[in-house]
């Protein structure tokens, strides 16, 4: 494939995605009118896009299907005319509800892991953990100044305390590195377990749950969130609402 063909193909994809400006679009439309092979390519790209969407729906329904079959294990029995009329009446009423739900479903399509994360994430304020009488550490100072790479470097050279791992993990989070953030948070929890301490545990559990959401590890996020919700005295107990948990469950099956 030469460069011009490649560029035209890219333009077709941008056209398909609605990303071309007015003049670019006009130029491409003129090319399409004159070139049947280009038309065929566009048609095939459209089919490819539709195939992906069709596949997405199939995958999503398949995920829910088995769950519902388990829920409705009771055998189907034949019903008499009276019961059938009652059932149909009830079903009609239920159908009205389903119509409503179907149309409101569009709201759910807009939900994404990143949006849910952003709606719930606030940068951790390190000043809340230290009073005025004690000096802040270098790592705390770098963190307050949002020098996240420096926080990470300092943490790597430090003694391996919970706070250092925690601030380093938050820094990775700020730098959009979910994997390293998760590793850091897990280190705090492991350290807690090894030294039988609970320092920074509750902060870590909350931010780890949020990181799992952004990383699309929904099962792990739910496990952590349920743990927090089952602990009324937890520092972040009020942050883990039923609504938030429902949204994560919804993302899980999307």
């Amino acid at each position: 494939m030469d460069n011009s063909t490649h560029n035209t193909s890219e333009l077709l994809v941008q056209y398909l995605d609605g990303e071309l400006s007015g003049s670019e679009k006009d130029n491409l439309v003129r090319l399409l009118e004159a070139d049947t092979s280009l038309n065929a390519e566009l048609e095939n790209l459209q089919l490819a896009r539709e195939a992906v969407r069709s596949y997405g729906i199939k995958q999503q329904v398949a995920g829910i299907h088995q769950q519902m079959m388990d829920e409705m294990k009771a055998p189907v029995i034949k019903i008499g005319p009276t019961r059938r009329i009652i059932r149909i009446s009830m079903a009609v009423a239920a159908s009205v509800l389903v119509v409503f739900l179907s149309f409101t479903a569009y709201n759910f399509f807009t939900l994404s892991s990143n949006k849910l994360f952003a709606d719930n994430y606030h940068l951790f304020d390190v000043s809340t953990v230290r009073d005025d009488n004690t000096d802040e550490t270098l790592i705390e100072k770098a963190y307050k100044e949002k020098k996240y790479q420096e926080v990470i470097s300092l943490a790597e050279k430090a003694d391996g305390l919970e706070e250092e791992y925690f601030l380093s993990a938050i820094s990775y989070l700020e730098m959009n590195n979910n994997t390293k953030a998760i590793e850091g948070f897990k280190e705090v929890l492991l350290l807690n377990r090894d030294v039988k301490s609970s320092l920074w545990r509750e902060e870590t559990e909350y931010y780890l749950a949020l990181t799992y959401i952004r990383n699309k590890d929904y099962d792990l996020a739910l496990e952590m969130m349920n743990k927090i919700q089952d602990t009324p005295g937890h520092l972040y107990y009020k942050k883990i609402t039923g609504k938030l948990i429902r949204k994560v469950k919804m993302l899980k099956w999307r």
Partner: protein
Amino acid sequence: MEETIKAIYRNNFESLCWYVMNNSGSRQDAEDVFQEVVVAFIDLVKKEKFRGESTVKTFLYSLNRHSWLNELKRRGRALTREEKYGSGQDRTELDTSHLIANREGKEQVAKLVGQLGETCQKILLLFYYENLSISEILETLDYENEQVVRNKKYKCLKQLEQMITENPILKQTLKNLLHG
């Protein structure tokens, strides 16, 4: 979306399952057909082809019936007089036969997209199914920058397009299936 799909199952599965089971089908057949019906229904709602002109129940019933008839036809059997439920309703029934695609066609679509690598599937699903922006995908998949994601997405879609171009029979199946 998950709750909507569950509501569709809870409100409709039992009666539609009954239809299949009383017309030469097993419970497993009924489950498979209903799953197809839900996929078709969600697809139609997303494409704004279902506008609530009939009730959801009536619409699903019609999809279910045509899906089961297609399957019986595929198996070389016909219902005709043996159809126990719904016979005589043809005059008033919605014609949704064109909305239910054949099972083989759907399996071909699944197989086609399934042939892509896992990363390609993920990027294309995130962009075209979940409607995430390139920047949102970047945050999810840890690529270097948006241009890298954009290039990757382009290559993945192009790969899928090539697979369609190289197989005219598959292309025709896709056209029938996706554009009815």
